[in-house]
């Protein structure tokens, strides 16, 4: 049997449509729509791309083209409940950012860009987060973690795992 299950929920569609009056055409809704899907699902599977394209009156290839440019929206599987970006650009690297990245990955038992088996945490290297005054730093979800040390990095990994399954 063919399933007609939609990926885009009515709530997601309503949130996207609410932004439509801001732009003179619907293509400009591409990034806002991808963000809304990614916020809810923590990824943007290809079926969602097709549905976004239908909603905006675009070819799926047009949406996929934009999406793939950013390397920001996972497509194969959701990122962890916490998605952490560890800065490795110059100001952070000068204060040990690369070591912090290694350390967090080690503590979480994953490689950069990896997700822990329990789905609690994804760790990605980031370029300058615009918080060089707090180097080395990391953005995890909406929280900026400042002046990281090995100890605070380990505590972060422990907390992220303990929170797993409880946030949503």
């Amino acid at each position, binding site marked *: 049997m063919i399933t007609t299950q939609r990926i885009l929920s009515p709530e997601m569609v309503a949130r996207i449509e609410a932004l439509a009056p801001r732009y003179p055409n619907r293509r400009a809704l591409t990034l806002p729509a991808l963000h809304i899907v990614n916020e809810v699902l923590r990824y943007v599977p290809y079926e969602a791309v097709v549905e976004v394209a239908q909603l905006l009156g675009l070819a799926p290839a047009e949406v996929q083209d934009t999406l793939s440019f950013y390397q920001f929206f996972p497509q194969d599987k959701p990122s962890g409940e916490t998605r952490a970006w560890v800065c490795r650009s110059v100001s952070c690297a*000068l204060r040990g950012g690369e070591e912090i990245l290694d350390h967090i990955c080690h503590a979480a038992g994953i490689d950069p860009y990896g997700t822990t088996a329990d789905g609690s945490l994804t760790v990605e290297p980031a370029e*300058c987060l615009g918080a060089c005054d707090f180097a080395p730093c990391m953005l995890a979800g909406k929280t900026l973690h400042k002046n990281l040390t090995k100890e605070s990095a380990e505590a972060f990994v422990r907390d992220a795992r303990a929170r797993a399954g409880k946030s949503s």
Partner: protein
Amino acid sequence: MTTFQPVLLEAVGVAGSHTLASYRSRGGYAPLERLLKEKQPADVIELVKSSGLRGRGGAGFPTGLKWTFLPKDHPGPIYLCINADESEPGTFNNRILMEDDPHQVIEGIILSAYATRATTAYLYLRYEYPQSWDRLQGAIDEAYAAGLLGKNIQGSGFSLDLYLHRGAAAYICGEETGLIESLEGKRAWPRIKPPFPAIEGLFRKPTVVNNIETMACVAQIARRGVDWFRSIGVPADPNNPRDPGSYGPKLYCLSGHVERPGCYEAPLGITARQLIDGHGGGVWKGRKAKAVIPGGISMGLLTEAELDTPLDFAGPGKVGCLGLGTAAVVVIDETVSIVDFLHNSCRFFAHESCGQCTPCREGTAWSLRMLERIRAGKGRLKDLDLLAEIGNTMGMMPGSTICGLADGAAWPIKNAIKKFRGEFEDYIKRTNPSGWMVTDPVPALPIVGAH
């Protein structure tokens, strides 16, 4: 050093500084209300033009002049895009303005929209600034409720909508036409210019793109006047008719190996040494600086001997740097290997090149591969000439690319090899004693952690 009272940052650290009430109590929005009543858009352009304000986003283009490039008597719409993509490594002043004093930015936006006759403004904010997003959205909501945004602002007949638009973690979205393409829902491929955005920009309509700090300056010029603005900074060089001068206060971001990293406001023209020693408390741990980035990583490097260079729009160029850029000053102490620094720089640009132009895509990728190989103990002296060649041939200046990202990638390479060649040579000879002199082609190593 004479003490300088911060203006752009006057609200930083004040409780509730991000609220409308706080901004009003500091005199905010009164200049806007006065100008909307008394002045025509052309008068506001003239005000900004005569102030000598130059864009704070990196290129230093005179703001009022840019506005005059818009077509006259255009039926509209005209768009204003506010560039808050702020992704140049070392740079965070826009973040502080948006978080601590969003209304100052919004007043500047309304004034600039009035001057340019834009009725829709989009503020393109990098994804990594969730706190800025919340503060701005809160301030925009307050401004609508107070009749400072929306239809018929303060009964002036002028209407403006201001919308936030979120990026997705790509440095190239800060390039103004990359930003425009991204806003339109496409990949952020910078456009070939001309046409410039003023003629054909967002949604193919006349468009002005300006930086957040530029907007804050516009608000302060409206409040304090042209004479105040021109009394700060470095006047135009009378012997150089093409120098528009460096007027006004500037936000310098200080990071890396300093005791007190932070965003400091100072008159344009303060030297790197004054910033580091005066504001930053000196190089950390009592060490010496080996090199200092004068204005974001794209600008290249100052040596210790060049630290008395004034950081105005003309200063860094006189010692071989690309320019003032974003005025982000990053201190690299004497213990750091310049090889590691350049590797970090090359990795950034290889990651962020949008890939449209072959010299940039290949030049950034190959410079990274060469630095990987050098760091793996397989460098050859010949690599330094190859790197210098990449540095000399990619970019808008040599005329081989569409946008300035490639120049930004080239300058750290050129500066590092020219100013620190001896250190590179020593490193290569020390780490590759049997192969440093080889000149035959060598295979590349697999890249770790780059894509």
